[in-house]
């Protein structure tokens, strides 16, 4: 579904040139649960931004396959990326990034509004997804009125509402206690089991255990790319 070839991202300030990603080659297949790990400054967030179509690479290719049609989106304009993004990706952030001024219901419904889905359909889908993540009883609450775990469940619901091709999760348990963190990871695992592709950036080895494949980054390079089973065998 995703194929990155010789992908680099260089940031230029006035005097300094920083290479955040250096000739990255990475493929993600439909239905995978990929964990990206690495120390601070290794390029995780940059890679996530590019995968999430929030940023474009300086060089290399980003092939995205949708409904059997493959296209290189590395040189897409911001508008085209926005178009693709809203149908293809669901985001889950470490700090939840719910909009404080909107209720739980409205936050979850927002992607559907940008997709111009009718009000009746929106209602139906939002109610279903809120039920699925077990937060339907809080639908009229504002984000500040919820616990961290509840907020992240809302964020997951929002990520799923538009039936995305894959979910990008950036440290989804970073701001949660262990119990809530576990709940969220189980939810992602469950979604993956139902066929949703999940790409997750994490510092937590424990969370990475939920993934079927782990990629480790260091200084903009992929140092390790191993499927879970292989990794487990190696450990044994």
């Amino acid at each position, binding site marked *: 579904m995703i194929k990155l070839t010789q992908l680099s991202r260089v940031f230029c300030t006035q005097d300094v040139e920083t290479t955040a990603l250096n000739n990255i080659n990475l493929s993600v297949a439909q239905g995978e649960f990929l964990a990206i790990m690495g120390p601070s400054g290794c390029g995780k967030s940059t890679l996530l931004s590019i995968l*999430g179509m*929030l940023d474009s690479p300086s060089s290399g290719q980003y092939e995205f396959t949708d409904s059997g049609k493959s296209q290189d989106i590395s040189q897409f304009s911001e508008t085209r990326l926005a178009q693709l*993004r809203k149908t293809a990706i669901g985001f889950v952030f470490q700090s939840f*990034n719910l*909009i404080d001024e*909107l209720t739980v219901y*409205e936050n979850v419904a*927002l*992607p559907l509004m940008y997709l111009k889905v009718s009000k009746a359909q929106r209602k139906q889908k939002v109610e279903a997804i809120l039920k699925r993540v077990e937060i339907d009883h809080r639908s009229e609450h504002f984000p500040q009125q919820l616990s961290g775990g509840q907020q992240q469940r809302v964020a997951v619901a929002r990520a799923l509402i538009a039936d995305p091709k894959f979910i990008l999760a950036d440290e989804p348990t970073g701001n949660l206690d262990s119990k809530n963190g576990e709940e969220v990871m189980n939810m992602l695992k469950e979604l993956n089991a139902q066929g949703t592709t999940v790409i997750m950036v994490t510092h937590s080895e424990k969370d990475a255990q939920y993934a079927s494949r782990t990629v480790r980054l260091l200084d903009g390079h992929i140092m390790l790319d191993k499927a879970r089973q292989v990794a487990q065998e190696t450990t044994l």
Partner: protein
Amino acid sequence: MIVNYFVTAMRAIRKDKQHFLLNVIGFSIGLAAAILMALFAQNELSYDNQHPDSERVYRAHGDFTAWGMQLTGVSSYRIASEMEKNADVEGIFRLINTERLPNYQEDALNLVEKKGTYHSLNNFYIATDNILEFIALEVLEGDIKKALQQPNQLVISESEALRLFGAVKAVDQTLNYSTGQYRIGAVFKDLPENTHFKFDTLMHLPAEFGDSQWGFHYYKLRPQADIPRLEQAMTKHLHVINPTEEWQSITQFLVNLEQLHFNSNGPFEMKLGGSLATLQTCIGLSVILILIASINFINLNIAQSAKRAKEVGVRKALGATKGQLVMQFLTESLIIVVLAGLLAFAIVELWLPQFNQLIDSQLSFSFNSSFMLVMVVVILSVGVLSGLYPALFIASFSAKRVLNGDLVRGGTAIFVRKLTLCLQGALSVGLIIAAISLYQQMELVNNLDLGYEKKSRIIVKNLPSQPIFKRDNNALLSSLRRLQGVEQVTLTNTDFTDESSGIAEFTWPNGETLTGIPPSIATGFYAAEVFGLKLLAGRDFSPQFSSDWYRIDEQGSRIFAVLVSRRMVELAGYTNIESVLGMKLTMPGSNISANVVGVVENVKLGSAKEQALPILFRLGDSFDNYNYFDSFGNIVLKISTSDIPTLVAKIRTLVEQELQLSDVTISLISDDYKALHKSENQVLDMVTIFSLLAIFLTSLGTFGLASFTSLRRQKEVAMRKVLGASRLSIVNLLAREFLVLIIISIALAYPITYWLVGDWLSNFNERIDQALWVYLTSALIITVITWLTVASLAFKAASTRPSLILRDE
């Protein structure tokens, strides 16, 4: 989607009430001021547009500036008669003040009697019967055309009918005058405020009317008329009928009816005209206020944008396009602007009475009018323009950056914010300088040595001259002198705050004749004392020298005493003012002579913009070169009481009883003088109010920005406190950024303000020098206000426990 925008906006407002209030208050004040100005401008520009064919009706004016006088709206009857033959002229309407027809007093008497009580006829004019072709008059009763064709018929206004007869239906009612009787021929609805015409009583133009008269002449020209050629022909004819040398420098010109309001500030006008400069100043000031309010709006929204950055990032990540985000934030701006607009309309409703008082007008505000529609469109346009930049700015946030926690925005926004704050500061500094300079200039004008005293002087105007201009047994003046608080009383045919219409061209013993219409003013005894004239030589008119009073000797010669001004003596060629005392002046071609009994310091008649002309005061009955006697005179009282209302009431009772008059006009000369400078005083009031508003709005903007700055730098402040910084040093640290901007704005404001204020001052003959202290004071005021505004917030930031901030970080 729009509902979602609206809901989000309302919740954002609820969440940040301070930001919302700053925006709404600032914008509504700016808008309210602009609406008031628009009402004023609409009214000023509507003058005389209602009259038929107003676009091709012109009034003939004379340019007397070569004589040191003004532009006047009156012109010669004879020129009009000649121009009537011109192919470009379709018709001429004549309007002549009966006060200026002393040789026609038998028919045109303003003083009428009804059941034993005398009444002055207000604003009494002679008019031609084609009046309805030139003026949009609504006739309530009678036939105005017929009434203006017949002698002894009056056409009166609705309010005059009510005053004289207690009812609007007054046709066929009668009023007696000394040698006959008037019959009311027609009644017309009172003239609206937005016209330069002001008459309440009209009578016909007699066929034998003297050609030598001057009055208002309105020319209806044919379309495509050659106006410059017509003006040349008028001037040429003026020179033909007045062949003497001094007249050759006088010119005639035409002013369109729709422009008359701004061109009717000369003498003899029906009412005080408007001032284009005042209008332009007011419009300019309201634009400045809107600009300041819009800048505040833009700055506050941009400053607040960091708070919304996360939302923008999330929305973008969820698929919102830039256009959708622009629409969202524009909707929020429009909600604020609409609320500010509603508040502005409420403020206008509330302020309108005070504003009307300030500009001496009767503006009204209707919610069901095209004006309202225009205002709504303007408010929305200003809202869209002010909201667009912040909306574009916020919508252009990079989702990736803000979601990674990078909320610091680029240099462009900071530059724009600093630039706009500089602009606001510069406008405030400029307005303070302008307000102080204007105040100084108006103080100079009000306290200008005019050669006569304005303070503690009361004038009783437009009294019949015959009963008051009496040398002996003047019971009225004696009674007035006995009133408590009255020091002395005299008579005059001239209101000093107006321009003199009387002229007297005397020949001096050295053969010098002063031409160029030197004003000649008839007075009573004690003229120098009551008017406060400065006697340089000789003596005042006094009953001790009763032969000074105008008299006709055995040979039929007319003789009287005069006081002459220093300038007149100098122009007559005498260097020693003492030497002219006792000299006999003669008037060529007449049997009039005058004895000089005193020389007074120069007197300036009219406004401060006028020059001091050579002037002559004569004792006794009033007449001028043409031997016309004035039908009206004034009594002037020198007073020594502070209880003016009581004294005025006593004077009124006394004069009304003695002269059997129904209504008497009494005013303070100082008030009349102030009224002469109405437009300048209006500008002063406006600039003062607008400056205060501008400073308030700028402070509001600075407060808003400073609150965001202190929020942005709270971690730095906390760290500095941990490292031992004092509160004051932190306050100064935060204030420094703003003070640097204020210094730049002061540097910007100084040269522009110096030039603009200097340009305005050049309109005055006597003017102040722009003072350095004014510039320094205004800079200090803005600096102190800015420092206090920022310091109040910075102090709060500096007082917060660092642990609270650093823990959050």
